């Protein structure tokens, strides 16, 4: 207790001290990004931190509306679906790179082909696989000119698909589909040195100090520059979320993107805390190759024995919603998908299932290991689940906490002892972003779950021309997950907790289910009108 009080005093002083720092200009936005970006090359970007930065440095054919995260025209002033959605035609507006070169349709074509090039090793390459011939080209089965991307003139881009892809306009807004300047791959230090960097976004790179910060300044050549009021952005890449929160308290930061949920209680009720439904699910994986979880009845018993509402109320407290389905309920607010919910908390039925599986009252159950990666929040949740399973199923569970990389390694090789904690954040606003990861060949599956029917349903959805029928197919797939097979059991739907200094950020900052905050729109106090 004394230690806590001491810490609080320390923090208060830290706040006081930080105030002393010479304040940045009123038109400078300072925020704490979630982590150090691995790369600023859109072809390699994968993490939320990288995407946050690329939204400022690059602009795709579309961009995300800050309120809804839905795609709106950007470099493309207009897009037209032809041929029942199998062809998209983009008409580009006249806009320029930061060095004055015009942004052309072939810039987009070449950038996308570069992503597809095997040598680029782009981690999100499969987002482009709906483009005709893209997968074949990536896998070396077709030549480059067979990929369905054409630039008949400098301001027209035509993309052809095997099947309509309802996600594509969304995907165009962010990496890896934003354009890179032709010099990017060939120039040493392109992504690290301000002099070398060329971009087409609202901001350009001004300074990059690894593990410290990235500074960006307004791009004067940006087509919509007159609507950008921020002159400068300082993005701190703090490893320690605690340090980020401290800096925020000290007024060194206008916005902390994501911070420890365990800290939330001290912010509850304050105007600075912003929580919003987030397209992300916390769940537990079963190792379906290991006794007793090779039996679906045992998995279902576990699913029914967990009181999710108690976890959300007792531990999380930020308005997270209990999840019995894999796709978060807020998907319904951004698409026509109807989420599937699994069975509710029902310890009686759970014990019946366990008895059916040959473990009446849990007798005969081997001890089970529940593995998680080191983190205070995860620890509390896993402990709660441990207690519930012991209480309701008489299941003996050992919690094993491992360093992150070791945890991932164990998951990938199915080396964990039975249960493993996991989470998934949507890449785009479509159930596919969740359901895909439990496909038999997905590297993110990590449960050993392999279901032909499920994989076929996903394939069918990809090929389905009718949007409504496509979503129904995906619902059938989700039913397999959370009503029949239970390779995972969902626990809760995330909220995105963000700290925002509302006295500094007075406009253009909205909550949306993707948790993205395009900085182009943000308005600071006394900057602009």
């Amino acid at each position, binding site marked *: 207790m004394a230690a806590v009080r001491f810490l609080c005093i*320390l923090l208060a*002083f*830290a706040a*006081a*001290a*930080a105030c*002393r*720092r010479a304040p940045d200009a009123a038109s400078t936005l300072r925020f704490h990004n979630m982590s*150090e970006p*691995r*790369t*600023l*090359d859109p072809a*390699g970007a*994968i*993490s939320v931190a990288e995407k946050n930065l690329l939204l400022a440095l690059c602009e795709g054919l579309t961009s995300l509306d800050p309120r809804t995260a839905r795609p709106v025209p950007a470099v493309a002033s207009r897009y037209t679906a032809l041929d029942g959605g199998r062809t998209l035609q983009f008409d580009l507006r006249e806009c320029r790179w930061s060095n004055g070169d015009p942004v052309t349709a072939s810039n987009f074509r070449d950038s996308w082909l570069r992503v597809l090039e*095997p*040598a680029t*090793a*782009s*981690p999100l*390459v*499969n987002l482009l696989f709906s483009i005709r011939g893209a997968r074949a080209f*990536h*896998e070396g089965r077709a030549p480059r000119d067979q990929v369905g991307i054409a630039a008949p003139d400098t301001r027209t881009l035509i993309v052809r698909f095997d099947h309509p892809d309802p996600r594509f306009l969304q995907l165009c807004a962010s990496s890896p589909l934003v354009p890179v300047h032709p010099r990017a791959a060939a120039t040493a230090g392109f*992504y*690290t040195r301000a002099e070398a960097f060329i971009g087409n976004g609202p901001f350009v790179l001004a300074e*990059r*100090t*690894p*593990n*410290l910060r990235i500074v960006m300044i307004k791009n004067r050549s940006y087509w919509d520059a007159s609507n950008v009021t921020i002159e400068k952005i300082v993005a701190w890449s*703090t*490893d*320690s979320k605690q*340090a980020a929160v401290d800096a925020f308290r000290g007024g060194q930061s206008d916005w902390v993107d994501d911070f420890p949920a365990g800290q939330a209680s001290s912010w509850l009720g304050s105007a600075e805390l912003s929580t919003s439904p987030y397209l992300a699910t916390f769940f537990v994986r079963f190792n379906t190759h290991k006794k007793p979880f090779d039996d679906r009845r045992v998995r279902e018993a576990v699913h029914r024995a967990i009181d999710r509402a108690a976890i959300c109320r007792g531990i999380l407290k930020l308005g997270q919603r209990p999840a019995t389905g894999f796709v978060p309920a807020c998907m319904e607010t951004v698409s026509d998908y109807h989420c599937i919910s699994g069975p509710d908390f029902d310890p009686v039925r759970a014990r019946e299932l366990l008895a059916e599986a040959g473990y009446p009252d849990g007798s005969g159950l081997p001890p089970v290991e529940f593995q998680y990666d080191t983190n205070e929040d995860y620890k509390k949740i896993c402990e709660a689940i441990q207690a519930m399973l012991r209480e309701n199923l008489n299941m003996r569970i050992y919690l094993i906490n491992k*360093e*992150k*990389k*070791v*945890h*991932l*390694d*164990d998951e*990938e090789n199915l080396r964990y002892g039975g249960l493993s904690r996991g*989470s998934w*954040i949507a890449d785009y606003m479509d159930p596919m972003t969740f359901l895909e990861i439990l496909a038999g060949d997905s*590297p*993110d599956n*990590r449960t050993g779950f392999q279901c032909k029917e499920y994989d076929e349903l996903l394939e069918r959805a990809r090929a389905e021309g009718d949007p409504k029928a496509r979503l129904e197919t995906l619902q059938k797939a989700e039913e397999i997950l959370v009503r029949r097979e239970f390779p995972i059991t969902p626990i809760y739907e995330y909220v995105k907790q963000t700290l925002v200094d509302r006295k500094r950020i007075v406009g253009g900052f909205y909550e949306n289910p993707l948790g993205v905050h395009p900085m182009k729109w943000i308005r600071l106090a006394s900057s602009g009108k």
Partner: protein
Amino acid sequence: MDPARIIGKMTPAARFWIRFAARRAARALIVIFIVAAASFFLLRAAPGGPFSGDRALPPSILRIVEERYRLNDPIYLQFFHYLQNLLRGDLGPSFRNADFTVQDLIAIGLPKTAAIGACALLFAIGIGLPLGVAAAARRSGAIDRIAGGIAVAGLAVPNFVLGPFLVMFFSLILHWFEPGGLEAPADLVLPAVALGMGPLAVILRLARAGMLDVLSLDYIQFARAKGLRERTILFRHALPGAISPVLTYLGPACAAILAGSLVVESIFSIPGIGGYVVRGAANRDYPLVMGVVLLGTAFLVIMNTIVDALYAAIDPRIRRS
């Protein structure tokens, strides 16, 4: 000219220094090789790979990346390639900071770490040595008592406690310094103190004990009997003998400062190479960790060589053997 003849014609001192340099260079290469091998294999023995993450890479992409960095070769071959590149002065790319090479990162981080490290060492020697000597010269006097307090505090308070304390007191209460960052020379003060306090305490104790030892020796008595001034006795006669233990400790002191920089850099938010090791290990960024470890090893080997050279320069008896 026949090298043997050249050596034969040299003065004994010159011969000593040439042999010293040759032997040290050979030893340095062996040490660096051993450290390189040990860290190379140990790093790779840790479970988990550099390219795993919350989101797994598609298998085809992972294969390409692993091939590019030769991670699928037999490990001895990987090591061989690493050494080959090392000899060419190429430390390889960073896996985690993919836009930078290890050289880039070191070039960015090293000046910061070197600045606080050098300041910490200067602080430790500049305060510890005179204070220790003064404490011994006026044994049980006021200075001795103050020095004793400093030594106990310096040894008892680890840098991860001292650092936050300094921040609280000097930047949050007194507002003399910034609580973190490295923008102005004044920002060096608190990290250097946090980092140098431990070595300072050790140097102070060694200097005091060494001085007391030496002051009780016959040659000091004889110097007194000669009627020399106390100052001459203290500085000319006693000091060389008294600082040998301090010199011997300089090697370990550099190691302590290097290790301490891992912690202190994170307390003061200084993006130096100390943080690279911590993050590099967590991210399995093999080339980055290797690069920094080898740099640290080379630094320690050089420091130890300098220390031994100083030792030989001060004590003529060592040069004879």
